[in-house]
């Protein structure tokens, strides 16, 4: 509670603010608060969830116009209309968000911008929306006899809504949902592999965007009591964007500061609006180039600048604490790939590949570059759909299931080129893996927030345990990109294990590791297997494969050319031919054994 003590003076100042202001100033503040709520919505979609949404101003418009139309033409009361308006804005948000299921980044930007233009076009021409003149005479919102036509009293209504909006946004960003949204922003493929339902999460982002847009629209209608198309045009969208960027898009508080600050500046420069517009543009360009995280990121940028002068200590990996061994839960085959073929246009990457991995085995998959190993992993983990054939997990046919679904079924994987969430700390990376809830769970956020907080506390406790186990205590608070490569590999492994998988797919886990790190990796993988997890490992480091795997499958040109114990496979003539060319003579059994011996030493 002590940490929140600073809130008291802030609240007091907010409460007393109107007493010191004139009628016009309070109006300016009222408008600024509306922009702040809008900016929170945009920050959530764009900064936190990474969805380029240039239609926020249209959501705002839908909210305001729905209130205007329903009160003046359908004769509804203000608050009934307000509820319907928020619903309308959310529905509109979902509609605008649908394209996000198919496209991202600049594509999404242009489509949402186009839809925002479509909205402006409609309200400018439709009779029901009052055409270019807009709709005036929106009734004053009734409030138990309090006269809300006064800007002073309306301020308190806004303040209340604003505080609730801000608190909810902060709660969402700091909860498991917000972490998943940020993970999706940084790397949607990896987030999917960790069990985040990407389509639903993207829609969630747009629902939030519509919600905040709608709420702001209702307040706008209640405050100004007049709506016209120019309040919701592209120029205002740009202003809003400038607020969010200057404040810092990934930080909700930053968005609020940006919004209120820019709204004030705009008011101060009203007489020189031409130059002001020029100024916003320049500031946005400068912020993007020199301070990509906006005002909210400045303190950290300064700290980094200062720390560069001082001496930094090198991060160290701690020792790995082995898992308790437990027998594999079930007998039978953990993974069964049956005649899988994967074709990319003309190229056949996998050609009727079959392999069966019994529960509790460490299976190696080797083969020259381009032989289809990673494609096989991508098919098993759901990134690709097999052209033909089927994949069975513990006897269930899972062919063609989405990555998040497979992740929930217990498939975890790592990636050849590390896919850590760059802007999340190591601890948060692991927390994303630990969170096993379905996205449908999110109804709890508005209804039972304390349950969410309890869940988060339990997740955090388990994260500490895992961080300790993988020896990451020193680096838990750091961002992955600042860490050495070997540590990043360890983090990815820990993140995969956070999912408590039954099947672990490791794609070249030893690439870029030094000898000692490879030895530790071998130990870790053995311990993971002993805890009851089946492991499939793609690796070029033959020493590791030979010493670690009980069985090795060799792929070449998309086909399985050998399958058996490492010693047998290593001398198989086809394997030797695939690796060395057929002009070489096959090594003898003795040579292979010597190689194994050397590797295991």
């Amino acid at each position, binding site marked *: 509670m002590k940490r929140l003590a600073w809130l008291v003076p802030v609240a007091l100042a907010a409460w007393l603010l109107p007493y010191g202001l004139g009628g016009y100033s309070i109006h300016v503040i009222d408008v600024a608060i509306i922009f702040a709520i809008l900016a929170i919505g945009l920050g959530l979609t*764009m900064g936190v969830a*990474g969805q*380029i949404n240039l239609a926020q101003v249209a959501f705002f418009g839908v909210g305001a116009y729905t209130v205007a139309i329903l009160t003046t033409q359908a004769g509804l009361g203000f608050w009934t209309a307000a509820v319907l308006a928020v619903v309308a804005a959310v529905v509109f948000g979902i509609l605008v968000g*649908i*394209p996000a299921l*198919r*496209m*991202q*980044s*600049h*594509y999404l*930007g*242009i*489509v949402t*911008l*186009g*839809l925002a*233009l*479509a909205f402006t*076009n*409609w309200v*400018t*021409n439709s009779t029901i929306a009052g055409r270019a003149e807009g709709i005036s005479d929106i009734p004053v919102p009734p409030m138990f006899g309090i006269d809300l036509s006064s800007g002073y009293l309306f301020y308190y209504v806004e303040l209340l809504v604003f505080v609730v909006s801000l608190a909810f946004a902060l709660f969402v960003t700091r909860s498991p949902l917000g972490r998943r949204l940020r993970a999706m922003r940084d790397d949607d493929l990896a987030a999917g592999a960790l069990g985040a339902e990407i389509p639903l999460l993207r829609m969630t982002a747009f629902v939030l965007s519509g919600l905040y847009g709608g709420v702001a629209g209702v307040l706008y209608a209640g405050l100004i009591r007049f709506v016209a198309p120019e309040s919701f045009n*592209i*120029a205002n969208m*740009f202003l809003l*964007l*400038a607020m969010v*960027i200057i404040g810092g898009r990934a930080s909700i508080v930053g968005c609020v500061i940006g919004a209120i600050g820019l709204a004030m500046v705009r008011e101060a420069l009203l007489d020189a609006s*031409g*130059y002001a*517009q*020029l100024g*916003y*543009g*320049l*500031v*946005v*360009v400068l912020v*993007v*180039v020199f301070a*990509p995280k906006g005002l909210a990121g400045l303190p950290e940028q300064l700290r980094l600048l200062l720390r560069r002068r001082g001496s930094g200590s090198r991060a160290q990996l701690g020792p790995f604490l082995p898992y308790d061994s437990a027998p594999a839960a079930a007998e039978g085959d953990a993974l069964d790939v049956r005649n899988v073929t994967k074709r990319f246009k003309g190229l056949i990457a996998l050609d009727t590949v079959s392999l069966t991995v019994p529960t509790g085995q460490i299976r190696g998959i080797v083969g020259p570059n381009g032989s289809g190993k990673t494609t096989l992993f991508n098919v098993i983990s759901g990134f690709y759909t097999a052209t033909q054939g089927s994949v069975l997990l513990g006897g269930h046919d899972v062919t063609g299931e989405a990555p998040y679904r497979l992740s929930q079924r217990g498939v975890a994987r790592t990636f050849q080129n590390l896919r850590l969430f760059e802007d999340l700390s190591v601890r948060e990376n692991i927390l994303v893996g630990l969170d096993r809830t379905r996205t449908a769970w999110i109804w709890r956020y508005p209804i039972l927030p304390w349950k969410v907080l309890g869940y988060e506390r339990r997740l955090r406790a388990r994260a500490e345990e895992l961080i300790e186990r993988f020896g990451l205590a020193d680096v838990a608070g750091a961002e992955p990109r600042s860490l050495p490569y070997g540590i990043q590999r360890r983090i990815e492994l820990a993140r995969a294990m956070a999912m408590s998988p039954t099947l672990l797919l490791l794609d070249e886990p030893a690439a870029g590791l030094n000898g000692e790190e490879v030895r530790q990796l071998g130990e870790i993988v053995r311990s993971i297997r002993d805890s009851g997890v089946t492991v499939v490992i793609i690796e070029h480091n033959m020493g590791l494969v030979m010493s670690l795997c009980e069985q090795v499958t060799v792929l070449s040109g998309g086909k399985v050319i050998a399958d058996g114990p490492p010693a047998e496979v290593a001398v198989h003539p086809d394997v030797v031919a695939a690796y060395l060319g057929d002009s070489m003579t096959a090594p003898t059994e003795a040579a292979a054994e010597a190689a194994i011996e050397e590797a295991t030493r």
Partner: protein
Amino acid sequence: MQVFLQTLIGGITFGAVYALVAMGFSIVYRTMGLVNFAHGSVVMIGAYAASTFYLATQLPFAVAIVVAIVVTGLIGLVIERFLRPLENKDFTLMLIGTIGFGAVLEAGAVLVWGATGHAVPSPVATAPIDLAGVRIPTYSLMVIAIAAAATGLLALFLQRTKRGAAMQAVAMDHQAATAVGIHVGRSNALAFAIGAGLAALAGSLIGPMLYVNPTMGGTLGIKGFAAAMLGGFGSMPGAIVGGLAFGLLDSFAAGNFQEYSELVTFLVFALVVMIRPTGIFGEATVNRA
């Protein structure tokens, strides 16, 4: 039928201009992976430069176009220098940075030329050609011819000249291009200048067809961008086909839905790209994101 043909002519004329805008987007996008949201504003500056020069000096329109191309080409070089730190980086930042630049250009135009804008008389004063009841304005023919010529020249440049080939190489792999001795920065600057030049050409041509005003860049830019997407981002043939397709969509929407044309155009556009996000020709460059 007559109405159909008339709409078709109008669609192709605007389509030719959208194609020029889209080509400008595409050449910048493929060479430096920069999504330039300021492009529409550059078109607007081009329109202003050409029309102001034309109205002030009474010299032939062709001279005005050349002047506009030079002016925007220079502006293009400045923008490129400014945005260089963003090239091949975070898409979102780039997008926002260029939107910011667009706002700067727009505000600059308001300061220089005022907020109201001006009409530009058609530079070709002859009567429209009457072809079986369909009236084809001579200016339309001129626009289409100039756009086609510019496209041809650009294709020649990209395929037949050493600089053009270097630009293509940078588009495919800027690191490999550096390794074989191509000055990537200079090549990018040239690409940006060409893109800006195309924007100026589009702007000067569309001036007499529309009302030249500071906010025209927003709509034109979005439409050109949408055209590029429809054709396949980064693909030059895609830009041409997408431009024409968007022009036709626009003009038939205007013919059938009058004031709601923009609504219909963007709804149809959203639907089409939902079905085929990579456009007709697909994305020509590898996914840089």
